[in-house]
């Protein structure tokens, strides 16, 4: 069972039980729907931003503990921060998850998200952990594209 508690750290179970910032809220500029087609996890995520500032990220999700906790922790990390900071965090998170356990996240930067260090050893669950992050990145890209389109 050592393996299993590597994956399901208490932080993850706590966020799963009590999701932060969950529910869909107004106002927002972009809404995206992301799914994990292999398991049917579905996530609707809204981004409310003002310039480079992420004002709010709200979401409604159906999914496993890993994907739900990951989205919850993501919102803690990025709400109130800048879009570019999120993109930086996202890149580090993705590289860690794809590193098969060779890379560890830094606690000062990543806070509760360090609980996902263990997920990297379960390649089948990497997609679950990335669901919310990929959705927010998509939302950011769409919002930026809008800006370019209207120029």
């Amino acid at each position, binding site marked *: *069972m050592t*393996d*299993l508690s590597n*994956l*399901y750290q208490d932080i993850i*179970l706590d966020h*799963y*039980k009590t999701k932060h910032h969950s529910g869909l809220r107004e106002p927002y500029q972009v809404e995206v729907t992301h799914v994990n087609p*292999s*398991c*049917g*996890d*579905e996530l609707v995520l809204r981004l409310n931003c003002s310039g480079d500032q992420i004002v709010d990220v709200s979401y409604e999700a*159906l*999914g*496993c*503990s*890993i994907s739900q906790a990951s989205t919850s922790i993501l919102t803690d990390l990025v709400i109130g921060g800048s879009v570019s900071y999120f993109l930086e965090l996202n890149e580090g998170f993705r590289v860690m998850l794809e590193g098969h356990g060779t890379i560890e996240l830094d606690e000062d930067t990543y806070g509760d998200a360090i609980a996902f260090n263990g997920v990297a050893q*379960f390649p089948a*669950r990497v997609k*679950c952990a990335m669901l919310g992050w990929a959705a927010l990145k998509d939302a950011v890209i769409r919002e930026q594209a809008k800006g370019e389109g209207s120029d």
Partner: protein
Amino acid sequence: MLDVEKIRGDFPILDRVIGESKLAYLDSANTSQKPRQMVAAVEDHYLHHNANVSRAMHTLGAEATEAFEQARAKVARFIGAQPNEIIFTKNSSEALNLAAYTLGSRLGPDDEVVVSVAEHHSNIVPWQMACERTGATLRWFDVTDEGYFDMDKARDEALINERTKVISVTAMSNVLGIGAPLKQIVAWAPQTAVVIADGAQLVPHQPVNVADLGVDLLTFTGHKMLGPTGIGVLWGKSEVLQSLPPFLGGGEMIEIVKMTGSTYAQPPHRFEAGTPPIAQAVGLGAAVDYLSQIGMDAIADHDHQIIAYALERLREVPGLRILGPTSGDRGSVIAFTLADIHPHDVMQVLDSHGVAVRGGHHCARPLHERLGIQASVRMSAYLYTTKSEIDALIDGLLDTLRFFGASTILGASTPGVPS
């Protein structure tokens, strides 16, 4: 009665240890494990008889062609068919696509195609594509809350009528453990309609005779019946196959090719463009030999006993809901949900016990939606499954409840979970 211990000796993978637990492989509906005899047949073919088929005229070419056509004959015999009614494809998805594409050529805007809400995606999407291409309308059987085909509703809706050109339904659902009432559906079908059965989960587990099934086309897949991946089968009544245009164009499927146009080979070769899966066919031939030697009746009996035992033991697990009927005559799968614990998480805890199951929507999203859930866990049995593997599943499920249920989701006191 099967000699399960002897059978397991032919499947070395079943002795694997996962982490610290003995493997309990309960995912045969996803893909079955492979006996040595099948692997040896593929090895022997590659090491001693390998050549291309038909177009190679030398001795090895003749041997390879003979082996390939013999495999076709074995598969035909296995389902009570003629060899020229057996088309080799890549898997059952390709077989269904072949059917949808070729039958699609005769569909028009006034026609209707009927599937069911319980189908695997591979028996939905090809028909959606055919309907989009031709303007035909896609309709479907609903199921009851218990998972049976809702024939009353179908009658009330005149689901099957004179516009119906194709009916394609599952002979055994990969989720519900029951299939469409094929006899009744065949009886309802108008003369001009083609009836197709998706046999991916039936043919590996029960004796099948196509004449008794009564359908026009039957699809199945080698890797779920002890065969290799990369080979599937479309069986069709000769006169139906004769009437179908080609699917993929290329070598082997032609009669005469001129730059101004070509004529096509007779079935089955008309539908087998290019170098076919030769070694895979040989492997599938060895797999059906293996199944036939043990006997499909005995295998069906064994599966039935294991499933009955599993249904009984699953009742001991609090918060477990079975999809489909909870008793009676069922196929070799049982899908279920466990309290509100996500199937991925259940699967993960079971994996830590060495128990391999599938978690997700099992390529049947519409069915899950119809049953009001997002996903499920599925265990499946086969000729090598033992009762002690079911016991390992039950232990794992109780542990899952302790891990997630009792501690986090259901509050501290999940009734009936021994700690």
